[in-house]
């Protein structure tokens, strides 16, 4: 293949952290998307706004918030460091955290559409057949919302791959430790290594195109069902 070993390492690292971040946000994303799709309660608008915030906030600002949050003097960072000896800032964990926060809204929005497309009549019928609420959720609701959920997973993954602003603030750009595709493209352009930049650009486009295309196709089927 035409990528150098160093570039391959960056691609592998990016795919791994993005997969991990998407996996991490999945249960939380579903836990937020489901009540948003089904219920009304005071404060729902606040939750909707908070969930959407990373989409509209400057990514660097989100990165700064994460830096505060995860630094050794920040709330969670201090706890993780003192209790478990784990540092987040400027490590691969920070890359995962930035990707997770930035891609969370996309997962929630798609999963919400998926849940809204489920015919609640079928859930009622399942209950009359003796199914408990968790059984109804996992055997009826989630499978019927799966197109929206999978679309959300793909979209979140693609967003994570493209993440730059928050990552550079909270994780830096440390070769072989926190360098992702986006950070490396920026770096190579800065250094005038255009050939490398374009090679990585093509990889990014292929990943993003595939994920978004699949996601759009699934969402269309989810809405029209």
């Amino acid at each position: 293949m035409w990528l150098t070993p160093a570039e391959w390492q960056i691609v592998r690292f990016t795919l791994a952290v993005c997969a991990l971040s998407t996996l991490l946000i999945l249960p939380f994303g579903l836990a937020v998307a489901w009540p948003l799709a089904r219920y009304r309660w005071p404060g729902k608008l606040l939750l909707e706004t908070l969930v959407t915030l990373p989409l509209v906030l400057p990514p660097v600002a989100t990165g700064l918030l994460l830096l505060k949050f995860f630094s050794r003097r920040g709330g969670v960072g201090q706890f993780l460091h003192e209790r478990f000896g784990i540092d987040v800032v400027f490590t691969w964990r920070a890359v995962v955290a930035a990707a997770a926060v930035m891609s969370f809204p996309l997962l929630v929005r798609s999963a919400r559409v998926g849940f809204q497309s489920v015919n609640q009549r079928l859930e009622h019928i399942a209950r009359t057949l003796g199914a408990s609420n968790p059984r109804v959720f996992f055997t009826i609701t989630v499978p019927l919302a799966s197109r929206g959920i999978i679309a959300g997973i793909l979209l979140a993954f693609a967003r994570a791959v493209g993440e730059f602003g928050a990552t550079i603030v909270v994780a830096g750009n440390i070769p072989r430790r926190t360098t992702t595709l986006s950070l490396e493209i920026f770096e190579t352009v800065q250094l005038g290594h255009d050939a490398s930049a374009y090679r990585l650009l093509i990889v990014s486009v292929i990943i993003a195109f595939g994920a978004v295309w699949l996601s759009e196709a699934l969402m269309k089927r989810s809405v029209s069902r």
Partner: protein
Amino acid sequence: MKLEIRRLSLRLEQFTLKIDVDLQRERTGIFGPSGAGKTSLLESIAGLRTPQTAMISLDGRLYENTAQNYSLPVRLRKIGYVPQDESLFPHLSVRRNLLYGIDGNAKHDTFSFDHVLSFLEIGPLLDRDVRSLSRGENQRIVIARALLSAPRLLLLDEPLTALDAKLKNAILEQLRSLHNEFGIPMMYVTHDPAEAIKICEEVLMLESGKITARGHPGQLLG
């Protein structure tokens, strides 16, 4: 069967459904025009709607008592519900739809898988995709699925709507003998007098949320 529905009051868009009735027949029909509150009544019994006030019990078992803030969860009511719209789980095969409500710990000779399948003549459909079923096949599977959950009461909400006359008659025959075969009481919602006469021992006439008449279907609708 002894189904008691006391002081049921359920606010609907056009009117309030008000029912106070004691049902003891095994095959009761709920007859009335569209929008009379028939489906809402069934849904209240099944626990799919929460009335503003009601005391509902079936064979001495309390289902709903709003005065005591008590409502038995839907899954514990053991009520087989056959709605008028298609209600098979589209992502599951016919076989898995049928197995969905079977309690693995309970042994039922009456509602055994083979018995229900042969009675409703749906054996050949087991491996079919749910989406490939005709309307008549679909409704027979829905009825079978409800039976396999070993319910105490079967609620049928216009199950034969949109079927052609020949198919309707065939399934009506099966429904008529269903009580003898499985000993299960049923409530049958319809706005077709012929269906009510054929299936029911007693009919309640429902109009704008109130029972306006009650009696033998032949006398009331014939």
